[in-house]
């Protein structure tokens, strides 16, 4: 009736570039599996009904709400969480994604709870576009418009998207 052997599956998933294996109940949400089975607590859960976007992660490069996906659905796929957003700088440190730097620079976060979801959504949006092209307000609205934040009033989050895009344009 509850989680028992015949209702569990062992899944293999590449998380932040590292192949991981986990045995999870089939009903386990991806968000819970990431947080509690794999210990990646950077992904936050704000509503568990797919509206707030705090739990957004990338599955095969696309942003998804990990509270609306079951862990078993990512078997064989690649998941990126906020912990995997920065790159190895090959000198033992981390090179932050431009959007991470921009959030700090533009004061785009306060309590930080919704931040991982915004970072993942915006990073996916910025990484997919031509960095040389002029960033339009419509693009910014698209990238920030689907996530809830209760602290910032969004002004500095929009500013951070512009800031990150400018950095990416410079560095291209």
């Amino acid at each position, binding site marked *: *009736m*509850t*989680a*028992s052997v015949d209702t569990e599956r062992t899944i293999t998933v590449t998380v932040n570039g590292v192949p991981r294996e986990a045995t999870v*109940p089939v*009903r*386990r949400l991806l968000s819970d599996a990431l*947080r*509690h089975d794999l*210990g*990646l*607590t*950077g*992904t*936050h*859960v*704000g*509503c*568990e*009904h797919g*509206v*707030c976007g*705090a739990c957004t992660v990338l599955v095969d490069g696309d942003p998804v709400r990990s509270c609306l996906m079951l862990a078993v659905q990512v078997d064989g796929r690649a998941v990126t*969480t*906020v*912990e995997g*957003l*920065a790159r190895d700088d090959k000198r033992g440190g*981390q090179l*932050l994604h431009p959007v*991470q730097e921009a*959030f*700090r*620079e533009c*004061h785009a*976060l*306060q*309590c*930080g*709870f*919704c*931040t*991982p979801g915004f*970072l993942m959504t915006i990073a996916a949006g910025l990484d997919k576009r031509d960095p040389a092209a002029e960033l339009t307000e419509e693009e910014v*609205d698209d990238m*920030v*418009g*689907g*996530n*809830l*934040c*209760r*602290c*910032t*009033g*969004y*002004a*500095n*989050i*929009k500013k951070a998207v512009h800031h990150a895009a400018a950095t990416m344009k410079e560095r291209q």
Partner: protein
Amino acid sequence: MTTKLFGEPVRRREDARLIVGKGRYLDDIGHNALAAAFVRSPHAHARVVDIDVEGALDVEGLVAIYTYDDLTGPMAEPLPVLIPHPQLTAPRTGYSLAYEKVHHVGEPIVMVVATDRYIAEDAAERIVVTYEELPAVVGVDAAHEARHAVHDDVPDNVSARHHQETGDVEPALAASPHTLTFTQYIERSASMPMEGRGVHAHWDADDRSLRVYTATQASTSVRAAIAAKLELSLDKVEVIAPDVGGGFGVKIMHPWPEELLVPMAAMNLGADVKWSEDRREHFISSAHERQQKQEITVGFDDDGRLTALDVVVWHDNGAYTPYGIIIPIITATQLIGPYDIPVYRVRVDSVYTNTVIVTPYRGAGRPQACYAMERTMDRIADVLGLDRAVVRERNLIQSSQFPYDAHLTFQDGRPVVYDSGDYPGLMAKLKDLVGWSGAEELRDDATARGKLLGVGMAMYVEGTGPGPYEGGHVQVLGSGKVLVATGLTSQGQGHETSFAQIVASELGVPIEDVEVTTGDTRRFPYAVGTFASRAAVMSGNAIALAARGVREKALRIAADVLEASPDDLEIEDGVVQVKGVPGTSIPLRTVAVLSNPLRYAFDEAAKQATQFTSHDDSKPPVAPGDAPGLEHRDYYSPLRSTFASGAHAAVVEIDPATWEIDVVKYAVVHDCGNVVNPMIVEGQVHGGVAQGVGGALYERMAYDSDGQLQNASFMDFLMPYASEVPDVVIDHQQTPSPLNPLGIKGAGEAGVIPGTAAIASAIEDAVGRRITSMPISPTELYDLMRNPAAERTAASAGRAENGVLA
């Protein structure tokens, strides 16, 4: 000078961990803990006839089930009335788990503990509670009417009748050249932080001590409540607020039942137990705020100057009154805003309803107060055919009138005395910022595009930084690191940064060396909490005083070593030196080592302080009245609150086809005295405005007449996304507070206060129909416009209306 960081937009130190997913929020703690889930009442008002747990017992992984019958001692008694008041004549609080009756949907009845949350919920689902339903009282009108009682022994549903007056209002009204009487409503919303509440408890059975993590705004008081309820000595309980994902008031309420039950279960089971609130639980069991009915009578002369103001408010306090009448008091006392009102009388009846409890949500009674006062100003202007700004200007308290005694008693039991401000200055800046004088051209332009445009404004004065006190501890380590602790908590306000700025500036050390801890009772056990825009005022000043104490001691010790007078010394970049004599210096970290006379040299630096290196044997190593260590603890306790102020204006454009209301411009002028970090203050304003817009146009708690919350999800409760929040233009004014050493006033709540009033005013200006109930949706506006009985404003009479309005 690198260390003078007070007033600079220093980038936040907490961000480094938060942008890489290394924050530590409540649910990030204790993956191996047992999980709690709750059976909550599905009825707004019912007698609990029977609880049958039989069906849950064979759920694999079930650990324990608790009902009221399992509570003993103080746990079996009602939850505390946190803030008693003589006018709170019929206080009622619930129990940690329901006893006999439930009074709102969402009230906890059974706690289930299991090996994980999924299983705990499986078990909770199998528990059958039998209820005898009772009639529900929903909304202030039903409560006031009192056909049914929420609590049997409070037949009129009135928990408190709060009353204040500054003179004899009736003769003053009778003698007024004009009077107006009107009624208006404001609906419920809620704090709605992105992280819900949550509690993790660890019981050390050998030490018989409890460590509790909770997403709270008041860890020291939660600690005291847990100790009292679980009959533990205070020294055996420590409470820590980890990273907290937003509070906005809902987490200042405490102890929540779960904050007591989870530790109780941990002690009982000898295992770590955790509960993380889900969003639905947050909607139906965590506090709301804002619903009031306001009856206002105002007297004024031909010029629009107020002669008397008489206000009666019905305030919905929900099912219980754990937080006393703080919101009614704040509404009553902050209602007068920046205006000089000769005679004022207010009565707030706080009434019970069968809905979730009402405790402060950012603004805490002030948005309602501002709505009452500012809409009164709009009405006077309309009756007299005057500009709304002019009527306000004629009533403003002038700069020469400070300190201004309002002859009222504030939420801290202290007199309402405005300490400083420049209200005409705010108004002048606001009119410039929003382009008040050009409003008619904007309207014409919108009309040409088939849109209705309106402009509105609202001003406020906000009592911030109430006592009783906060404390700060500053300690310089031998490594040069400077540890700072204060007891109040953080939920995103950037305290780690702004408090570090204060210490870096006061002490003369690099900010990189400063490490701030908040909300951890192990580090600072005396505190009140984070609410009422008080953290910067209270802890900021306490920490500044503590840093000054450390500085004084450091200079004294360094003066000995350098054979100089303390007056000739300065500290810069963590080095004490003789002013103007480079090279004659000693690092602060060495002073820290020397401050603690040692017998044992546990490391290289410590050798400097050991007994055979001491050079003065004429006095004891630690002089009488002195203490070892380069540290100081100090407290700031204000005589009374300090009063911040501001003015907002909104420009709305309404589409007469869809009645969609678009805020096209939002202007803010803000005065919170001296500013520690302007970037952080501006962020607070942005966030507050977004909540103000949400409260004016989108957010409401849609209870039906049975007390069922119809929109208990983010799908249905319309919290603004980026697309709903207008761009905000901000101008600043700084009138320092004379009350505290740093001259600061609080800034946390300001942004939310005037939103409803300013936007109501703008909509009314746009459509020419009286707006008397907020928030207002496009549908409600459409209904209002179609209603032939809807009152038209006098101002709209002379205006050519769009064809669509004919």
